[in-house]
């Protein structure tokens, strides 16, 4: 709760800081603001603040799970912001507005993980989505950025509409927006109205669109590709984390009794997402598009944890989103640096990176290994935990598909590693890529976190019992 208040205030403060015309202040300000919110979130976890029942009552709630997901969101934002250094130096950029929008979008994301009422969920989704539409088009002189923003906006608002329609139907059946009321309706009513099922289906479709689960993933590649890389990174981590936390929370609190209704269709979606995303990713020439499909495939694994639907699921989603987020930040961060030098986002722009800049190559390698789920990285335990929870549910055939998909995944993740270590440099004359201090700090943090969680997963898993 405290983090929402702080982030909103800081967002406005950031707008005013824009008057200083000093981009360095904005840059440092935004990082400090996110860090403060992160700390405030942890403080609130230890000492729950009471804002009076009128706010808490059936609107939002802070508990361990939501605090931890907020922590993942804010940690990702904190690790990402240093990577915006190059971006704000662009003469065209308007950093004050962008940082403010980023902070506001985090408000939406925090709402999505700590809502207690479907209205709050809707507000959260809208805040996050609208921010994302704007940021996708941030590069306003670029046709592809504009096209991506338009596509995202049209399809996204359509999905939000479907979601809202679903919420209305759920309200019609249960008579309430509050999760607890809906829960008592689904658990105590003898014959649940078909309207509720229909509403649930619509609401879920709307949310699955946001986290890009197949077959609602068609926007992903174009939008990720068109958006400025920094915002692609933001989109692929924050939206996914918040989205899956929201989906799981919705199902786990209010719709426990309807498991049989959505289980089969979700299972099929998992299989479909994993296969489509991984096979399509193999054929990409552009690293950024590959990362787009890779994010779709990770949505598949996360959805598998949702389908498993047991006490391990939320810790699996937490660990996986954290592992995925920090690895994605590393990967896109390196891409920002590499593509700013080569003006190219294809695999071959990574050629020979190990020779020209071993540090970046190492960061990228750890990120790719983590995304591929190789042991000693956080990604392995994320995947293992999802597999374990899926096993508990007995989803054997999906697990086999997940194993095959992981193998396919190795192929495209290793293409980058092969390009970096085994190919000759892209252009002989390309000078060494300059890596400034904020980047080094962010990369060291992401890489160390990835390896530390890979060795001591209990640091995260022990938090949520």
């Amino acid at each position, binding site marked *: 709760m405290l983090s929402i208040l702080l982030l909103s205030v800081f967002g406005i403060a950031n707008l005013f800081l824009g008057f200083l015309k000093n981009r360095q202040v904005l840059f440092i300000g935004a990082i400090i603001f996110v860090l403060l919110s992160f700390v405030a979130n942890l403080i609130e976890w230890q000492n729950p603040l009471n804002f009076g029942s009128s706010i808490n009552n059936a609107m939002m709630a802070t508990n361990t799970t939501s605090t931890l997901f907020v922590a993942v969101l804010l940690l990702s934002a904190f690790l990402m912001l240093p990577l915006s250094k190059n971006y704000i130096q662009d003469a065209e950029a308007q950093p004050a507005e962008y940082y403010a929008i980023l902070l506001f979008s985090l408000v939406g994301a925090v709402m999505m993980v700590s809502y207690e009422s479907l209205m709050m969920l809707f507000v959260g989704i809208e805040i996050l989505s609208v921010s994302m539409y704007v940021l996708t088009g941030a590069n306003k002189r670029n046709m592809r950025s504009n096209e991506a923003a338009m596509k995202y906006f049209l399809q996204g608002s359509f999905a939000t509409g479907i979601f809202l329609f679903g919420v209305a139907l759920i309200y019609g059946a249960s008579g309430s927006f509050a999760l607890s009321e809906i829960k008592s309706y689904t658990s105590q009513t003898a014959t649940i109205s078909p309207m509720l099922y229909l509403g649930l289906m619509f609401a879920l479709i709307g949310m699955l669109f946001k986290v890009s689960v197949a077959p609602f993933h068609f926007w992903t590649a174009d939008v990720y590709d068109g958006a400025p890389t920094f915002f692609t990174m933001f989109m692929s981590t924050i939206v996914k984390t918040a989205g899956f936390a929201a989906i799981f929370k919705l199902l786990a609190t209010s719709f426990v009794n309807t498991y049989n209704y959505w289980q089969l269709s979700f299972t099929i979606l998992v299989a479909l997402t994993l296969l489509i995303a991984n096979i399509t990713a193999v054929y990409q020439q552009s690293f950024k598009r590959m990362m787009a499909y890779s994010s779709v495939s990770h949505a598949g694994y996360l959805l598998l944890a949702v389908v498993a639907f047991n006490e391990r699921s939320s810790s699996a989603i937490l660990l996986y989103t954290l592992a995925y987020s920090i690895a994605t930040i590393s990967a896109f961060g390196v891409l920002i640096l590499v593509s700013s030098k080569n003006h190219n986002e294809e695999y071959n722009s990574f050629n020979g990176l190990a020779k020209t800049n071993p540090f970046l190559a190492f960061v990228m390698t750890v990120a790719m290994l983590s995304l591929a789920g190789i042991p000693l990285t956080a990604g*392995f335990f994320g995947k293992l935990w999802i597999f374990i929870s899926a096993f508990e549910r007995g989803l054997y055939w999906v697990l086999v598909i997940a*194993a095959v998909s992981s193998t396919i995944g*190795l192929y495209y993740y290793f293409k980058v590693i*092969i390009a970096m270590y085994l190919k000759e440099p892209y252009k002989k004359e390309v000078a060494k890529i300059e890596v400034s201090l904020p980047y080094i700090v962010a990369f060291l943090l992401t890489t160390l976190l990835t390896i530390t969680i890979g060795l001591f997963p209990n640091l995260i898993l*022990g938090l949520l*019992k």
Partner: protein
Amino acid sequence: MITALWLVLVPLFAALITFFIRNQAKLIALVASLIELGLGFYIFTKFEPLAKLQFESNMPWIPSAGINFHLAIDGLSIIPFLLTVFLVPFIILSTFNKSYEKPNVFYGLILLMQASLVGVFTAQSAFAYYLFWEGALIPVYFLAAIWGGEENIRPSFKFFIYTVFGSLLMLIALVYMYMQTPANHSDEASIFYKLGFDSQTQNVLFWALFIAFAIKMPIFPFHTWQPDTYTNSPAPATMLLSGIMLKMGIYSVFRWLMPVLPTAFFENAFLVIILAVIGIVYGAVIAIQQKDMKKILAYSSFSHVGLMAAGLFTFQQIALQGSMIQMFAHGVNVVGLFFVVEIIQQRTQSRDLTELSGLSKSAPMLTILFAILMLGSVGLPLTNGFVGEFMLLMGITKAYISTPSFAIGMGVFAGLTLILGAVYMLRMFQGAMFGEANPKTANVKDLNWVEALTLIPLATMVFVLGIFPNLLLKLSDSTIKDLLISVVQRIKL
């Protein structure tokens, strides 16, 4: 008190140090591997063959889920463990005449590989074991791919994808078994042994695990990655792959397959022995046709591992022990032979038998050591290869598969390895060493002291184990006996 954790940590820390020190990487790596060898010798002297788990270190890893990080040495671990600590110093020493690009990374990866291999051989809990199993793959992949040159990118990648696919199947099987353990669950090997699955479940799990192991060994028909990867990788990577990594597959059958799934192990023994015997003959026949010395060794390795694998499935104490000692013997011989080929290639820029001849005139010491290692690999009496092969073949002829006459037939086919092995090995030896020297081979220098220092201990080991096989056999004898008894008791048909 030295525990198994130390044995992993020493090479691991040495690897981290090596990564940051560019100039003296070679020396640091050698010193670290010698320290590890010293620790290995200490373990060897203190090891109690009759006791069960020793040098234990058991730490909670994810306590809420009952997952432990449990390392220990017992009668099954000790021989592959000793093999690892014995071979790595010589593998590092064998590179002293050659300078590799980025030596800090190169030697760091070798040490990282050693840490993982020791971990695989000492892990007593499933997820720690899996961690090391994959942890061994990454360094060797980079060694093979980065220093293997342009033509090795594809073969090593194929090898990588193949093995990881196998590993994922294995992971699923391990997770399934973990889920079946009582209450808060546990991933201890000893608890897995108590799980009594029905025959059908065991069969599914068996194949999920066995394919992973079979790819690593490799057993026919999972071997297609092997010859190209062995041939194109730089010599140290090939030595690690064939000398030690191959044994991961064999060892894993002892630890994670036979005692966990006894019924399926029994039911599939027939099929696996047939596959293994096909591999023995097929590998040997192809080896005879090859001209490239490294290819010959690659196929000979494929053929030899078939024999070790066949022995595992016989339910005979003698064959299981044979497999154990053959693991060690094969590791020593194949590393020595790959080094001999590397030396020849460095001197003549060729390892093609049609271009080589008459090396014995200019390099007598190389010839003698090559001969010793070659005879060990062929399995001449008094060499290390003989003990293992003899025990394995004897076990196979008595195997509990189908009818006794069928087992004898299998034994006869498997025994072809002795004859065919002699054919390709002698052909290789004669082709390279004897005959008229040509311009390429006439002025070859004999071994320098570093090379001699590498090959002489390996060649000595050929005789030491050939004459005193009991040095190793006694270490695993009682454990294997217990294992066999407990497995046979738990077979439910």
